[in-house]
């Protein structure tokens, strides 16, 4: 595509923004307001909202700060998807919109609504505190600043991606478990917990993990992948979740004999995953591959850890859910046997 060299022609089109409205002081329930404005190419949803606020209705309330996709303020649902308003191009949303010329803008889910597009972030901060989302340095405070920890590139890479998180809560908004259980730890907090756990400078690992395996913790996740698909920074959140689980199993396995219970929980996870995959097979074929490649070998490793004979050959990733179920059944048998032998 070429651009005329000495003049700039802006193409424009009319766009209707259907905006979620709720003011707790006067409204008994939320409603939608429509605003139609001309939008040229290159304009983001946030700039459109600013335009509407400045020119049509000053009372629309939303958060925005950096306007550069780094502060995490402007998370909202745009045509049903939780994302950042400041990095989302209007024309791109329109191209995918089911209703021509219309963009729906709603607040994030799973956090208490304050007003219009603004939700309360405090529950997320409380969870960060609850799960000690900080480094408790192994270096005593008195000797800080004197020398560096030596950290390998390899270790850095373990948490590099996780530190991209800007706490925008888009993943939180899409998490299926949170919809049912507001106390659930939340994907972003799992991610942050993982980031702390793999940092060798940290002394809290065990304590944090102990908290993570309790109710509402890491075992509640259904592997639905929504968080990872949503993440505005493309962070592989599931790697973090699996990382924590693997870690938990290893730690537990060494310490007590209830390891197989965890194994069971884990197997039921895989089963759930299987079901989910089945339900959404057309769009998630990758998920199946991933599951077979990653979860099964891990389960095997687990069983081995509990000194049980290795299961019959079940490796080889196979296509489709049928094969998956087949393998799964075999696996389950094994866990059951393993369980029995433990009881004896």
């Amino acid at each position, binding site marked *: 595509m070429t651009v005329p060299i000495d003049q700039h022609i802006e193409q424009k089109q009319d766009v209707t923004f259907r905006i979620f409205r709720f003011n707790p002081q006067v409204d008994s329930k939320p409603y939608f307001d429509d605003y139609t404005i001309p939008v040229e190419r290159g304009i983001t949803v946030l700039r459109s909202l600013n335009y509407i606020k400045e020119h049509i209705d000053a009372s629309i309330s939303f958060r925005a700060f950096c306007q550069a996709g780094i502060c995490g303020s402007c998370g909202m649902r745009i045509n049903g998807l939780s994302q950042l308003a400041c990095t989302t191009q209007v024309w791109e949303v329109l191209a995918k919109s089911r209703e021509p010329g219309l963009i729906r803008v709603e607040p994030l889910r799973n956090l208490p609504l304050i007003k219009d597009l603004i939700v309360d972030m405090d529950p997320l901060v409380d969870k960060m505190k609850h799960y000690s989302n900080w480094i408790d340095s192994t270096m005593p405070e008195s000797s*800080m600043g004197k020398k560096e920890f030596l950290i390998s590139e390899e270790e850095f890479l373990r948490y590099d991606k996780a530190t991209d998180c800007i706490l925008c809560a888009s993943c939180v908004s899409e998490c299926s478990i949170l919809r049912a259980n507001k106390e659930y730890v939340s994907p972003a907090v799992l991610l942050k917990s993982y980031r702390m756990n793999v940092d060798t400078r940290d002394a809290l690992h065990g304590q944090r993990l102990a908290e993570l395996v309790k109710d509402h913790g890491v075992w509640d996740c259904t592997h639905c992948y929504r968080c990872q698909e949503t993440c505005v920074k493309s962070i592989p959140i599931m790697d973090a979740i699996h990382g924590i689980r693997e870690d938990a199993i290893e730690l537990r396995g060494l310490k007590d004999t209830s390891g197989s219970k965890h194994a069971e929980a884990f197997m039921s996870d895989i089963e759930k995953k299987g079901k989910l995959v089945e339900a959404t097979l057309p769009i998630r074929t990758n998920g199946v591959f991933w599951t077979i490649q990653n979860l099964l070998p891990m389960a095997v490793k687990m069983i081995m850890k509990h000194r049980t004979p290795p299961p019959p050959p079940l490796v080889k990733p196979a296509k489709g859910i049928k094969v998956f179920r087949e393998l799964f059944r075999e696996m389950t048998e094994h866990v059951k046997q393993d369980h029995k032998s433990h009881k004896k």
Partner: protein
Amino acid sequence: MRFERMKPFDIVIVGGGGAGLYAAMEAMKTNPSLNIAVLSKVYPNRSHTSAAQGGANAALGNKAKDDTVEMHIFDTIKGSDYLADQDAVDVLCSEAPKIIRELENMGTPWSRMDDNTIAQRPFGGAGRPRCCYCADKTGHTILQTLYEQCLKKGVIFFNEYFALNLSVKGSRSRGLVAINMKTGRLEAFPARTVIFATGGYAKMYWNRSSNAAGNTGDGQAIAYRAGIPMKDMEFVQFHPTGLRKSGLLVTEGARGEGGYLINKNGERFMARYAKEKMELGPRDLVSRSLETEILEGRGFDSPAGKYLHLDLTHLGADLIKSRLPQIREMCMQFEGVDPIEEPIPVRPTAHYSMGGIDTDNFTRTVMSGVYAAGECACVSVHGANRLGGNSLLDILVFGRIAGHTAAEEAGRFEPGNISEAELQLNSDEIRGSMHSSGHYERYGELREELGQTLALNVGIFREASLLKKGMQDIAELRERFKRVRVFDTSDVFNTNLLQVLELRNMLDLAETVAAGAFAREESRGSHTRVDFPVRDDAKWHKHTMATMVKGNVSLGEKPVTMGRYELQERTY
């Protein structure tokens, strides 16, 4: 209306960016029994510190073994065009290695060198590669670390509280008045000491600024209205390549990889200004070159203003995808332009405010019990021009000093009593602009006009007649502001009200920027006077001090503290 009254605090910190958070941590460490609060109009992790990509300078000597603190000091003083106070620069640079390691010890994920030490890279104006970084998210990760550590230490946060005014009795502060954004209520924070850490004011150039929407100089304006002087306000740093529509930065990397700057005649115009270095000349020179092209009519025209092209198309899709993925993504997200296919529309953008609240090396202001640190303060370590990577360092070093000093000195002051009547006065003032009678000016228009007149008349090139025009415009805008209307009358999260309050702050400070620029009849660092093109040490080797007298700016001066380094011409 009822007002909330807090029990008195020993320290109230306004601002949860790098400076504010470090201050909070250090204050708790200095005296754990103190009652400390951090107020911030955004959740601390949203603060603009998160936008800093490049890194923070410290002479660790990890990359260049022969780097020294002394070299860092010299680079900083020279970079400042000799306007920095040399004793303050000593503090900044000597504390640097310690503070970077401290952050490292607390969990900041610095990128690493092959020998597993903190990685460093070269940065503009530095004689050695001493900029410590974490990929291209240095500010973000520093802010995360500090926020995490504050949560760990149990720092008390008042998030989404908007500081409104300092309550002043004679020459003493009683504490702070703030709006609880969630309820819309005014709340009084009586305090022994107050630390301002509210960040910069470069957003007054609005869409010709790389800054966050909230970098409106609130702390400076509050202090200024309370009678505390502002220092060197005329020094605003411009970055050459901001995106046309948003002002967001396209980092130097794009030119580093071989991007061309092109005018509407298709010329690589940098040949006119820097034959050898071309697009890679120093920041201020490249900014001035772009501006000249635009002023002389060789820019492209668009409804969003005149601009030039940063052309990467000749680099090819492969190189752009592999080496400049972030820049490409940014252009697509914010401007809707894919640099593989078309040139990027750019123009210079206001980036950093060197001026701010005048403080001593312990961050004290002239008002006892009031301190300031970070971009909102002017110690001064940056003088007429800040070096890249020195600002993150500034907020850390002086944020910590502020926390320490306030904690040590809090015992000397009594917390004041902020009366019901005073709160009522504050409240009436706010409510007043919500009435329709006599209030009709629109916030958006005033703000737009402010940004425009600043960019046009108090921008990169300055000249007496332009500055006069700018000052006139600002005075008119301040007059019109008295009739501004807050259209949203609700209490909960009234962002319309907050925008208007921020505009008031920008207008008050804009006057100091323009007045300082008009008075300073020389060219130094970021301040370029076409009518006074050379540095005039005899007359102007001094700080400008702006104080509010009867609602308007009054200028004074203060000598620059010299040290080991004599005045020299600044050439690179």
